[in-house]
């Protein structure tokens, strides 16, 4: 009995009834709060769908790049030959192209200009191997393995190629976050105001409850539940809209993307995950919104 009690079914039923009654009583505020949650969660949903798919694209890009292995410039031809053999025999390697240090220098001169011609006297570069992993997902693993071999100077992959995408990704994520946070607070504020109206409307009832010895949690639970309903009601439309549209998008586009780098996330677990998240956020906004009012207006 100390600290907590298991709630009786009868009490829970009473709280549920009270909270549902309040929704009807402030129908306009209920409508406004639910709409705010709906708009917020719709945006959250769209945002998540886009971000998650772009993230996966970034992953794919990262994995699809070749590995560049630069040998120790001091290594002699024999050592380079041994290294090449080692690289070719590394498990998971599908393709190795050998570029000599002279070919590498020519490439550099092409992109950076003739000033580099002076290096032709004594080439400071090492030979390079361009390695592709059989399974793009394993690129990082293969690179790590090769880096442990003797006479490797540098092992790099994905250089610069995905940075641009990440920049775009980060920026849109930040903008999206700010927008969503602002909407989140609007929704919470509206819910908190709806609950406040309920608390005011039920002032006499609350006063008597406290007078005759109802516990604080008994007094508060209906208001918290009301917040939960507002959040859940607000989550319904976004959940349905996101589910249906993603499913449509997926079944329309995925077949055409068969051999592309860009793949849509599989509909089945993804839609469920997004729905779970939206529902959770709805409940969270609701509970938080009502806590703000309950804390302020139902002081012990």
């Amino acid at each position, binding site marked *: 009995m100390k600290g907590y009690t298991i709630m*009786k079914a*009868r*009490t829970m039923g*009473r709280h549920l009834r009270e909270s549902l009654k309040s929704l009807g009583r402030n129908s306009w505020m209920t409508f406004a709060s639910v709409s705010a949650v709906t708009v917020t969660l719709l945006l959250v949903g769209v945002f998540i769908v886009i971000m998650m798919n772009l993230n996966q694209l970034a992953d794919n890009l990262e994995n699809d790049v070749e590995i560049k292995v630069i040998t120790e410039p001091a290594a002699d031809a024999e050592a380079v030959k041994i290294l090449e053999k080692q690289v070719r025999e590394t498990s998971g390697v599908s393709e190795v192209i050998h570029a000599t240090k002279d070919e590498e220098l020519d490439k550099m001169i092409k992109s950076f200009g003739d000033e580099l011609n002076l290096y032709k006297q004594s080439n400071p570069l090492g030979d390079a191997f361009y390695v592709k992993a059989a399974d793009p997902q394993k690129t990082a693993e293969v690179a790590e393995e090769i880096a442990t071999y003797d006479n490797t100077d540098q092992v790099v992959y994905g250089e610069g190629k995905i940075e641009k995408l990440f920049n775009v990704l980060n920026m849109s994520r930040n903008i999206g976050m700010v927008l969503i946070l602002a909407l989140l607070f609007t929704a919470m504020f509206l819910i908190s105001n709806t609950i406040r109206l309920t608390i005011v409307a039920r002032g*006499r*009832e609350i*006063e*008597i*409850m*406290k*007078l*005759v*010895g*109802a*516990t*604080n949690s*008994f*007094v508060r639970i209906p208001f918290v539940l009301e917040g939960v309903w507002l959040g859940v009601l607000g989550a319904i439309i976004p959940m349905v809209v996101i589910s249906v549209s993603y499913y449509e998008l997926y079944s329309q586009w995925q077949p055409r993307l068969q051999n592309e780098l860009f793949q849509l996330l599989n509909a089945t677990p993804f839609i469920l995950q997004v729905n779970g998240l939206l529902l959770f956020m709805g409940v969270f906004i609701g509970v938080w919104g009502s806590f703000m009012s309950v804390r302020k207006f139902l002081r*012990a």
Partner: protein
Amino acid sequence: MIMMKDVYKKYPNGVVAANGINVEIARGEFVYVVGPSGAGKSTFIKMMYREESPTKGDIIINGINLATLRNKRVPYLRRQIGVVFQDFKLLPKLNVYENVAFALEVIEESPKQIRKKVNDVLALVGLTQKARMFPNELSGGEQQRVSIARSIVNVPKVVIADEPTGNLDPDTSWEIMKIFEQINARGTTIVMATHNKEIVNTIRHRVIVVDGGMITRDEYEGVYDYEG
């Protein structure tokens, strides 16, 4: 039963409404608290059910020290105290029966116990016939009887009342007093703030006179000798 020791109460606006109150009230006593308006009677009453906390001093009710009682435990204190007000504080959308039952529902009493206790107490205050009527269909005296029924339905050891007859005509006031006498006869301690001279001087009980936040007189079988 009730003990106050050097109780001092200063409201945030600076008003001192209790200025060193020492009093002891035994189980089963009936006590009138009288005194001019603004004397601190309501404050005295409010401190007993922890609506207000004293700034200094101890208040012990039924073995519970209110000065050290944690906020979380206040509901359990209130379950041992019945409170009656001048303005009845009934819920207009609930009928007589529901208004009384409400007090038990919110402390999670079982439905069977609620039925039994509510019917008993409605019989005690003589409202069995009007159990299905709503507050706005009742006279002031009847409404106050509902409020008294609600305050005693959980069988508290103390009933405190702040001017319970303040809104009632003389005849009705006598009826209400009869009910308090009955409750007191069952062994319940009663503390009642009142301005009703006639009642205090006719139904003789202990009289505590409060003035300027202090007890200026405390007599068994006392009389009311204040104007106002």
